[in-house]
């Protein structure tokens, strides 16, 4: 009996330590980002930093305005959701409710595979296929643009949206649907009027995951967006918050390097803010 208790305590302790490691990591990253991100913001000035429209840190008269990155990141993420969410949502409804088990199995496997592709591969394919494609279709001088980034991000967020939505839709109690059908609703009406509302919070979670992936992606975006610090336009070359950090970090030094940490801090706060807001709304709706 006693040894059992000791064992239990030990296991409890181990799990506690493992949990604390995660918390410590988060704290460490947060503290580190804040400490290393604040000095440059103070030196540049918060307003000049956040709302400056020109980013030119290597110039003889350097300017550190990151508004182009902030807007590009927002536009890119929103654009990828506009393309990705409808596709992902309807795919999930189809796979969960309509598709035969065999189709569901195969398509599910394909979606999982899509989730496992490294982002650099998305970027490479985007660079070789999508960018020239956009150039041809829209008769542009060059196809590397915000649009290309949106499309690549849309494809990248599809797996998380589809998988999580399917799980939510599958979890809707069969009685709900049976009741709806028994009352004379068609299957389609049942899916969209009964199943989807019942799975609402799960689908919303899927979208949140998608937002997180889209706003945090750097590699694929860097390869297709052209990576120039322009104010965002659909067919212009743009740079995201993530790519601003990763493309400069290799060589930068001095204030330029500190400013990159500040950008990372802004990105971090951004993601926290989005998560908090969405969580707030989701929890609010549950009540």
């Amino acid at each position, binding site marked *: 009996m006693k040894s059992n208790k000791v064992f239990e305590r030990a296991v409890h302790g181990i799990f506690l*330590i493992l949990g*604390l490691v995660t918390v*410590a990591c988060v704290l*460490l990253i947060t503290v580190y980002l804040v400490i290393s991100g604040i000095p440059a913001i103070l030196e540049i000035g918060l307003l000049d930093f956040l709302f400056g429209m020109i980013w*030119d*840190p*290597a*110039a*003889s008269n350097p300017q550190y305005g990151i508004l182009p990155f902030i807007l590009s990141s927002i536009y890119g993420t929103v654009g990828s959701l506009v393309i990705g969410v409808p596709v992902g949502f309807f795919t999930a409804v189809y796979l969960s409710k309509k598709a035969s088990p065999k189709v569901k199995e195969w398509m599910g496997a394909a979606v999982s595979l899509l989730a496992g592709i490294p982002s650099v591969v998305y970027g490479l394919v985007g*660079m*070789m296929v999508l*960018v*020239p494609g956009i*150039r041809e279709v829209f008769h542009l*001088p*060059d*196809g*590397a643009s915000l649009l290309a980034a949106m499309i690549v991000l849309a494809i990248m967020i599809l797996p998380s949206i589809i998988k999580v939505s399917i799980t939510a839709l599958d979890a809707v109690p069969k009685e709900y649907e049976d009741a709806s059908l028994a009352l004379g609703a068609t299957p389609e009406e049942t899916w969209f009027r009964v199943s989807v509302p019942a799975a609402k919070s799960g689908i919303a979670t899927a979208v949140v995951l998608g937002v997180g992936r889209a706003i945090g992606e750097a590699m694929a975006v*860097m*390869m297709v967006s*052209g*990576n*120039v610090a322009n104010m965002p336009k659909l067919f212009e*070359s743009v*740079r995201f918050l993530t790519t601003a950090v*990763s*493309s*400069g970090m*290799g*060589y*930068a*030094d001095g204030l*330029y390097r500190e400013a990159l940490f500040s950008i990372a801090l802004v990105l971090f706060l951004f993601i926290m803010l989005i998560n908090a807001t969405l969580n707030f709304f989701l929890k609010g709706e549950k009540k």
Partner: protein
Amino acid sequence: MKKLICMILTLAMALSLTACGGTETASVSTDGSTSMQKVINALGEAFMEDTGANFTYNATGSGTGIKAVKDGTCDIGLSSRYLKDSEKAEGLKETILAIDGIAIIVHTDNSVADLTLQQISAIFKGEIPNWSEVGGKDGEIVCIGREESSGTRDGFESITDTEDACVYRQELTSNGAVLTAVAENPNAIGYVSLSSVKDTVNAISVSGVAPSEATIKDGSYAVQRPFVLVTKEGVALSETAQAFFDFATSPAANEIIRAAGVVPVN
């Protein structure tokens, strides 16, 4: 728990700091320009084979490499640009190891095969927006370059006198990415290290001089930059570091330097 993590982190940091300074064993540490990676690693490998000494190279960038020498955290700094006067005034000494040509590349379908330095400069500043103005087919010129902190960009812009004035359509982060982007777009023009040029693109000649080892060495090909070994003036290198320095700047190293795609000068 937190204390433990702190301790581990401090330990790791302390270790990483000392890793670059290890001069007491038979080793030589270099730090700097990523453009010099290929040539310095080839030299380092040959040196290790000959002497059995340890050779390390940190690919950080010219600026960081120069700073590392100044701070004494490495033996030899690597810079892909000449030292500034301010840096020489701080007691640093430059020794040119080799010369790297920067190739101006266009799509293989592009009929333009020669541009002057002025034309290249005007193209990248956006003053010549169309290929037809320099003898090519009608089409908007798409300038593809490197990110702000790249040594190749710094080299290119200082040679063509386009610092802070280039209008890029794409700013990519490696020679390979620039090659791919230019190979995909018939209206593109870009610049890469001569050693990384592949036949998926055309390297054009500048004022009638095609980029090659001979034209770079005799100075007739205009778009070129030095690979510099940076040391401290008046401070003796460790025995091993001096041996490496002598080896790298001796004619014996020329074959290795040439194999890495740049032009030896010694």
